[in-house]
């Protein structure tokens, strides 16, 4: 399934209609749920200490079915130690959005389910910060 189809499934889902306005969406990432491959979008709520991981909406890589996992379920499923993470401050907005756009282009290029290359991983780390990358994204596969 192509990335554009996965995004379309997400946008047309009931699940996204129930995401509160305040929560911000992470860049897409690959994840394994119950042994199957999904493209996941994490939703985080800005709090004083950083960003709190609230929910994941995942789209199955070939069947397109949606799975929704709440924060507590994510903690249990992936062995997360906490749900609140610090994120880097955005110093240069143009550079930040350029990195996000570039990451999404790399993610969408070619087969969705492949190992992330160093450029893709590096961009993700810059966008979401070390804590989220090391303690969440890297554990989803």
């Amino acid at each position: 399934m192509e990335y554009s189809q996965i995004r379309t499934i997400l946008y047309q889902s009931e699940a996204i209609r129930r995401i509160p306005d305040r929560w911000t969406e992470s860049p897409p990432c690959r994840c394994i749920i119950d042994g199957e491959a999904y493209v996941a979008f994490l939703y985080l709520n800005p709090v004083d200490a950083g960003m709190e991981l609230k929910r994941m909406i995942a789209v199955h890589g070939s069947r397109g079915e949606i799975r929704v996992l709440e924060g507590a379920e994510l903690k249990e499923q992936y062995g997360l130690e906490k749900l609140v993470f610090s994120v880097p401050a955005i110093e240069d907005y143009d550079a930040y959005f350029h990195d996000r756009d570039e990451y999404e282009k790399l993610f969408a290029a070619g087969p969705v389910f492949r190992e992330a290359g160093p450029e893709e991983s590096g961009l993700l780390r810059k966008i979401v910060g070390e804590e989220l990358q090391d303690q969440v994204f890297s554990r989803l596969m």
Partner: protein
Amino acid sequence: MGYVNTGLSVLLEALTNIQKALNSIESTKVSMSRKYQLLGNAWHDRKYRELGDVIQECGRSMDHALRNLTRAAKTVSALAHILREYEETSLRHTGVERGGESTGFSWPNPPGRPLNTSEKHQFLKNEMRSVNEIIENYAQALESRGMERGPAMDAFLRRQRFMMEAEALHTLNGDFSYHAPVLTGDDFDAVARQYRANTANAELTPRSLAVTEYGFTTQVVNGTEMRVYDDPVGTASRLIQKQGNSHFPMEGTCGLCQCANLLIMAGVGDASEDSVISAALHASDSVLEDMELFNPSQDERGGTTTDGRQEILFRCGLPTQCVPVSYDRSETTRTLSEAIRTGHGVIVSVDVARLWRNGQRGGHAISLISVSEDGGTFIYSDTGMGCVGTISAEDLARALTGRPANITTDVIR
């Protein structure tokens, strides 16, 4: 030494019961007075006058009881506040604050433990029902004074309703300083006198037109002259400018304010942040949960989702569709442009990092109030910044979060 064992939930229940007693006494007074007047249509002798003296004396006793109960309510309210502060001090020592719900402390003899979020929601619902009863009592009190049920009475009662519902929410969040006024016979007399001759002209139901009544005019918007749909400058002056200005203790109300703005654009004269919050409080459990009514931070209370806004607007008489964003964002901005220029109301969800670039993160609801004739520029209401802004179609496309837009089913202007 006396032994006292109580808890916050017990005190809050006592406050509710005192309020019910206050309103029961007031409605009994009104009822006695009304019945005495009705009897006077066919009865004019000395016995009737003596009955009048008895009723007057009863009325004075009831006023005395009302004053005592009002004082008691203030005392219980102050005690609840102190108890709440005490519990929160102990709770922070032992437990973790989580979304407005505290854990870690338990009284040795329940009841006395803090209310959890689910219990607070239930308490709020009970309060809403009490408010409904009180409003009906007020309506009868005004009717007995010659005021007819209709738009004028509804407008007055709506304001009383907002204040009582706001008081309930303030109380549940540990703020006992906010009190809705308890109306007395004198207040009803004054209201009836004031409103008897007035008929409120505010339209209460949203417009539903066959086609839009507006086209494009040339206007200067934020310093730039352009041909725009309808009159965004004039429209903006009628809308809610800044969120967080209601009676209710919540400030994260962008989605709720934009719901009110759509209602205002649809011609509902008395739509306000208060009225939409009140509608939301009577909505489904999922709407209440998303509002995070008991979050420790007022900034984080009042949130909505696309689905929630659809439900709230439907309750207010304005049906909407949830229109998904397209992968090709330019297709979405064309859809939004078409919706606006054909007279539909539009609320979208945007990324504040894109819109504001001020260090803040998160999503935010804005309404699109106009569009340039070429579709290249949108004019939007932003109650977070308290401004009306312009944004290019390309920037709007990038700023959309991917959540569906709420677009009115009907043509509203």
